[in-house]
């Protein structure tokens, strides 16, 4: 039994850490977040050259064919470095949906980084569960909270009865900004008036593809959130060691020190849960949905709470724009709301473990 990274995964982590430290130092991540356009094309190409954009897409479909645990390792490093732009939207979410829907050609072009895609999923009122979607393959209506639509070449539209690929520039596609607090990933509304598109999957196959992509994206998001928590923790601990008040480093005061310890506990737990969610999806274990909900319910609360404590440990400094923590704090909120918040996933856990003798119910020893 090995609940830990393989040697290759450890190499991947080191490489990612090294690359991101060099290519996306904090000052640069801040600059991108403040610039109004977090999608850095140069950085994108460099990541594509590393094979990252195709990491978890099968070799047969133009990717590297690594697993979801590898993807989680990478996402954690990206979350730590505050990488914004379309990485999550394109190879992770849209790429998975394209591949699952059998749109291999498009998946390959996303995997190579040549094209940027995004998923149009959420509808009016925040509806996003596949079975509740209103839009049909006719593609009439609005999709909301579409990530990095401005940077995307392709829209992968999740409809009630189909997965449809639409060129961003197609006639009948209109879009506009939805300014959110997290400026590392822009949000847009997309208005569709029956644009031409390629139906990648229909009916049950479409629902399955959307569902698969949601589960994978959720697990990847949890890994990314864990990386953010780690960074928030590191910043706070570092500050607690150096900032002095009343003649002591503030980290010597238990109120501060225990807040740091809480952050550590939450980060460790979130990491274990996110890694397991990725592993379970990868292996297709019976408890995979349960594992994803555990990871997202946990991370949704934990990332926000790490932010709360991280800012509090910094005192007034933590409330300034100059401090890095707020970028993570804002992303924590965006991530919390995306793909189901903690309340949503707790209810899903209840459905799996309380009502039926469900998949999360069998001891695995």
């Amino acid at each position, binding site marked *: 039994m090995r609940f830990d990274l393989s040697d290759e995964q450890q190499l991947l982590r080191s490489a990612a850490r090294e690359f991101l430290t060099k290519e996306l130092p904090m000052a640069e991540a801040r600059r991108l977040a403040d610039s109004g356009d977090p999608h850095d094309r140069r950085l994108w190409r460099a990541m594509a050259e590393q094979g990252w954009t195709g990491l978890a897409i099968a070799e047969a479909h133009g990717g590297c064919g690594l697993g979801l645990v590898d993807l989680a390792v990478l996402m954690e490093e990206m979350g730590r470095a505050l990488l914004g732009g379309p990485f999550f939207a394109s190879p992770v979410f849209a790429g998975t949906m394209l591949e699952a829907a059998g749109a291999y050609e498009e998946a390959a072009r996303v995997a190579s980084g040549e094209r940027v895609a995004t998923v149009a999923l959420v509808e009016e009122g925040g509806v996003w569960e596949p079975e509740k979607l209103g839009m049909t393959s006719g593609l009439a209506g609005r999709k909301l909270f579409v990530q990095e639509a401005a940077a995307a070449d392709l829209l992968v539209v999740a409809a009630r009865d189909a997965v449809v690929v639409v060129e961003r520039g197609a006639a009948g596609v209109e879009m506009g900004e*939805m300014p959110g607090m*997290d400026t590392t990933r822009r949000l847009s509304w997309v208005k569709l008036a029956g644009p031409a598109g390629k139906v990648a999957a229909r009916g049950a196959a479409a629902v399955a593809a959307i569902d698969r992509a949601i589960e994978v994206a959720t697990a990847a998001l949890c890994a990314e959130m864990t990386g953010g928590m780690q960074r928030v923790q590191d910043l706070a601990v570092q500050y607690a060691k150096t900032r002095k*008040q009343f003649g002591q480093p503030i980290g010597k005061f238990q*109120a501060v020190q225990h807040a740091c310890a809480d952050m550590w506990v939450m980060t460790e737990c979130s990491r274990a849960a996110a890694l397991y969610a990725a592993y379970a999806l990868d292996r297709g274990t019976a408890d995979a949905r349960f594992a994803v909900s555990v990871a997202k319910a946990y991370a949704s609360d934990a990332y926000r709470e790490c932010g709360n404590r991280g800012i509090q440990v910094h005192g007034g400094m933590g409330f300034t724009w100059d401090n890095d923590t707020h970028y993570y704090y804002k992303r924590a909120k965006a991530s919390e709301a995306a793909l189901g918040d903690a309340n949503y996933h707790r209810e899903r856990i209840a459905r799996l473990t309380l009502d039926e003798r469900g998949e999360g119910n069998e001891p695995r020893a």
Partner: protein
Amino acid sequence: MDLDLTAQEVAFRDEAREWLAANVPADWAERRRRDEPMEERFAYLRRWQRRCFDAGWAGVHWPREYGGRGATLIERLIVIEEMARVGAPHLPGVIGLEMVGPTIIAFGTEAQKQRYLAKILSGEEIWCQGFSEPNSGSDLASLRADARLDGDHYVVNGQKVWTSYGWAADWCELLVRTDAGAASHKGLTCLLVDMKSPGVTVKPLRQMTGESEFAELFFENVRVPVENAVGQVNDGWRVALGTLMYERATLGAGMQVTFRRQYERLAEIARQTGKSGDAVLRQKLAQSRMEMEVMRLAQMRSVSRIVNGGVPGPEGSLQKILWSELNQRLQQTAMEVLGVYGQLAGGAEAVDGGQWAYAYLRARGNTIEAGTSEIQRNIIGHFVLGLPRSY
């Protein structure tokens, strides 16, 4: 126990209510949501203070001889609550009205009273306070800005941070070290400093919300006449502490009404979106509503204690803890009610123009500003419960 207002208080409240109904500018509700240059906003608010002052509603608690109405604490709270009820613009000279003015009344010379008080009331001169320093946040007694006597002037050097309205202020109540040899909280003096003095630099301090409510102040060989010391020289700790006590006792006053307004709006949104049928959100909303009520009651008890003979005590820490932590939970609950929409900072899809996202971020500062939650619990532990100092 009798919570009814007296006939006189009712009359006073009705008077305030009537005046506010007739005078609160109709464009404020709309305007406050709009992005406008802060100077423009400030000029607008100054006009509002002037209008309040002309009608006798600024500094009602000040003695009549200094231009106030000599209102009781209850009457003063009535004004604060009535203003909050109708969502009136806030008074931009609040630091002067609530803190510096009362300090000058209590500790100032006759000449200082003549010079400063009337202009504080009218809003003609805006005040700020220079207390916190980069290395003296919670540990205020360790501050290092110093004033060296040079003839009939002090020469001030140092830096202050977290100065509310620092970017707008004409004057500053500045806490500086006048006796470098004295123990940490001795040897401090409060100076009244003209912000137009040569050597004063003001830098806006950008918060995580993107705004700059606060400023950093830099003092480089700033000359301040000796007669601008307020209270005794080297007695500045006592002068400043009185001010802070005042701050903690009144800061929460209008809040419960503001929270109530936010709750009502949130309840409305919840009904409109169907979220009011969600049992889980109902619990969280009700919890916040309960906390608001408890805060209101705890505050009435504190006020009652002060009225029945007493100055604000360390119990002010109770209010501080209640309103700051309540607001953080309330804003998180608001986010859960709004769901994915909560994060929107603007745009057509944002609820109420994105003010919920702002309120969520802004609330994060509540447990830090005006004394962190940790400091408040230290105060309660040590001064109320008699436990040994933990810091």
